[in-house]
C-alpha cells in the first residue's frame, strides 16, 4: 500500500503524487478503494501540494472516488492545486461538482463542517 495517505478523524487524506497520469492514478485508486472498502471511509481529501503534473486520468480518479463516496453519503474535497493542476481541473469542469479549498487545513475544516451537518 502507498504510504502517502493517512486517516485522521475518519477522513482519508491522500497526498497526491508528483505526477498523476494513468499509471500513477491506477495505483492511487487501488489504495484509496482498499481503504474505503475495508475501513468504511467515505470522506476523502486529495491534497495536491506536491503535484506538478496531472492529465485527464487524474480527473477520472477524483470523479470515480466522488461517485463512490456519494453512494454512502460521503464527500470528496480537493486542496492545494498549483496553477497547472488547477487549469486542468477547471477545464474539465470538475470544480463545479467537487469542493475546492486552498489549503489542507481549510479542506479539513470543510470536511468537519460537513460531518457535523450530516451526523
Amino acid at each position, binding site marked *: 500500500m502507498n504510504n502517502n495517505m493517512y486517516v485522521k478523524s475518519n477522513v482519508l487524506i491522500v497526498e497526491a503524487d508528483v505526477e498523476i497520469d494513468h499509471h500513477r492514478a491506477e495505483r492511487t*485508486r487501488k489504495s484509496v478503494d482498499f481503504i474505503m472498502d475495508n475501513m468504511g471511509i467515505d470522506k476523502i481529501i486529495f491534497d495536491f501540494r506536491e503535484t506538478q503534473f496531472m492529465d485527464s486520468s487524474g480527473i*477520472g480518479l477524483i470523479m470515480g472516488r466522488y461517485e463512490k463516496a456519494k453512494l454512502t453519503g460521503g464527500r470528496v474535497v480537493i486542496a492545494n492545486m498549483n496553477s497547472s493542476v488547477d487549469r486542468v481541473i477547471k477545464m474539465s469542469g470538475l470544480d463545479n461538482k467537487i469542493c475546492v479549498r486552498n489549503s489542507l487545513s481549510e479542506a479539513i475544516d470543510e470536511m468537519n463542517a460537513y460531518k457535523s451537518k450530516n451526523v
Partner: protein
Amino acid sequence: MNNHKAEIVINAVSENEAFARVVAAAFVTKLDPTIEEMADIKTAVSEAVTNSIIHAYDNKGGIIKIELEIKDDVFYVDVIDYGMGIENVKKAMEPMFTTLDSGERSGMGFVFMEAFMDELNVSSIVGEGTRVHMKKRIGSVSDTATEVALHGTKR
C-alpha cells in the same frame, strides 16, 4: 531553417506514459518554450499515449511510435498505434465521451489535446490503428504575457 526530427518506439505499457511525455518535452526545449507551453505538450502527449495503451490495445500491450518534429518555431508530434482503431472519430472526440463504463475515465483526453495544442488531427482505421497528429507554435503571441511574467522581457 530550423529543422529537427526524432522518432521513438515504445511498448504500450502505462510505465511508459511518463517517459513519452518527458521525451517530447526534452525535444521541444530547442525552441525555448515557456513552462506553460512545456506543460501543454506534456499533457497532450500523455493523453494520446494513454489512449493508445488503454483503448487501442485494451491494456494488453503493443507498440506505440512517436514522431517528433520541429520546423522553425513549430513543434509537431504524431502518436501512432497499430491497435483496434476508432470506429467514430467525431464521437470519440466529444467531451465526456468514453467507451469504458468503469467511471474511471473522464472522457477528456481529446478535449485536453485540442485545448493544449494549436492543431489536432485524428485518423483511424478500424483494425489497423490510429494516428494522432498535433501541432503547436512555440512562442506565439498568446504566450507573450506569460513570457514577460517569467523572464521579465520580450523575446
